[in-house]
């Protein structure tokens, strides 16, 4: 299967493979995903890897400790397309110290921001899962069904587990797209791993429909 829990053993990962990190103390809850920013390497549980990811901020070359990983085997042409897309948004990467939270969104998984007078696009906000999904869309791979009707409800408690900073910024949740008290149709990081945990031809043919419990992998 294309996705793996690294407690089962090391795995060789390649550039733009999906790497994920579990929440501390919650054995299988995936709190973060990003795209590997390194060439082929064997990774083990807790290895630090370089990633392209929405931290926030959107970062190229940040590091995360990897606990789970998954991939769609990409063709050479798809890797070139992926790399070209990565360069097209090069002006939007920030260093960690910039800490620009406005770049981040929880719901929907991505959203373009526009000038309010001219309607000109400025940049795209992402959740960590949204960034990974949008990357794959650039090579015409729809990993996950993201229509609200197709997503499980996510309650406030789960949000607090998924986003540790959310407790501190609870009053600011509307800024990240979470109005009211929930539940919301949030794309959680674990869904991406489940989407990748299918035969390759199935991943390419049909987006995965997330189920309750898929926040864990």
């Amino acid at each position, binding site marked *: 299967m294309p996705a793996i829990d690294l407690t089962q053993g090391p795995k060789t990962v390649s550039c733009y493979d999906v790497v994920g990190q579990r929440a501390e103390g919650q054995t299988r809850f995936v709190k973060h995903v990003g795209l590997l920013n390194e060439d082929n390497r064997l990774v083990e549980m807790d290895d630090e890897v370089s990633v392209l990811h929405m931290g926030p901020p959107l970062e190229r070359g940040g590091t995360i400790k990897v606990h789970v990983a998954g991939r769609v085997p990409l063709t050479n042409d798809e890797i070139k*397309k992926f790399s070209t897309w990565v360069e097209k948004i090069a002006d939007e990467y920030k260093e960690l110290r910039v800490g620009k939270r406005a770049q981040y969104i929880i719901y929907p998984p991505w959203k373009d921001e526009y000038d309010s007078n*001219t309607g000109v*696009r400025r940049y795209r906000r992402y959740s960590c899962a949204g960034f990974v999904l949008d990357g794959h869309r650039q090579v015409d791979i729809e990993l996950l069904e993201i229509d609200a009707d197709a997503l499980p409800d996510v309650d406030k408690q789960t949000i607090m587990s998924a986003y540790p900073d959310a407790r501190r910024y609870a009053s600011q949740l509307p800024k990240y797209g979470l109005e009211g008290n929930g539940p919301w149709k949030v794309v959680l990081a674990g869904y991406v791993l489940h989407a990748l945990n299918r035969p390759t031809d199935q991943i390419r043919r049909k987006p995965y429909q997330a189920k309750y419990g898929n926040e864990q992998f």
Partner: protein
Amino acid sequence: MADKAEEQVSQLQPTQQRKHSGINKAEWIDGYGPYRYCKPTSDQIIAYIADMKISGTFKKSGDIQSDDIDISKAPLIYEEERWRKYVALLSKSIEENINRNRIRYEETLLSVEVEEQVDARPIETTDDDVSQWTSDQLASAIVHPEAESDMPRLREMILIAEDTGFTVSQSEQLARWLLSFAERHRDSSDPQDEVAVWSAIRTGASMLTPDDTDGLRPLLEPGHSIETSLVMVKMLGRIFEAQPPAEVDEHQELAGEVCQIAENLLNRYAITISKSAAMAQLSIYALAAMASSKAQQIVETVQQLGVTWFTQQTLRELSGLRSIWSSRPVPVADRPQKLLDRAIQILE
């Protein structure tokens, strides 16, 4: 180590309120967002967090490269909590960064020392918290003649402006200023200016109407230490995608410059480098969006190159432009639309 730091800090007695610990504003040479820091001596860091209006000195054994320190994610605490707890949390954050190799030398923090102890009561923050400002306050502060005397603050304001809605009159003033800022600072050697320059271009350009775009040509020039041409070409495409021209070839000089970029990059060698491929595709998108008749000859060149992935990706981008235009409440004028359709047809 964090426990040790916390213990040391807890032994300090709060005494008096202070704001900048005697350091002039201009000396806060580094930092972004809610924090500033500087290195008055090789073994000290003084950090100042806007949210709390407090500062402290952190002593460690070895030299710290200030560029490598990240305290932007230092845990923020609520105002009622004690300053010393904050210092402990901040030191923990630094320690975490040592563990993450973000601090060049992995020598541990020896001590955390409050240079001048402070009262636990926070100072009012409203005026200094840029994120809480109105658009009017922000616009006025950015274009203020002395704004550049505090570059960390100015960079922070520029980033916040990108997420702020301005009135048309504020935008007219700001767009000119932001694009001028980008032009004046693109030769900066300070790595922190790069993010601000790119943000200024995105925000400034997004405020323009197509009639104002000829003034953007200087930012297409290559060869500066902060590369502005990629974001500029990208924004040109976005300006015209949102405000399509009524006729073809309305912006011939600008199109000429963009076409030159595309022509120089459209060869099999250049497009193997992903940055060049990105630039070429963004140029093609801009030419099609501004309804330049040069778009047709350029997509013919793409077709002749015969590089399948590049052709497919260019086609995908132009098809995206067609979707955006077709979703507009007001239809795009006939000739620009036909020009785009023809470009897509060549690539299909």
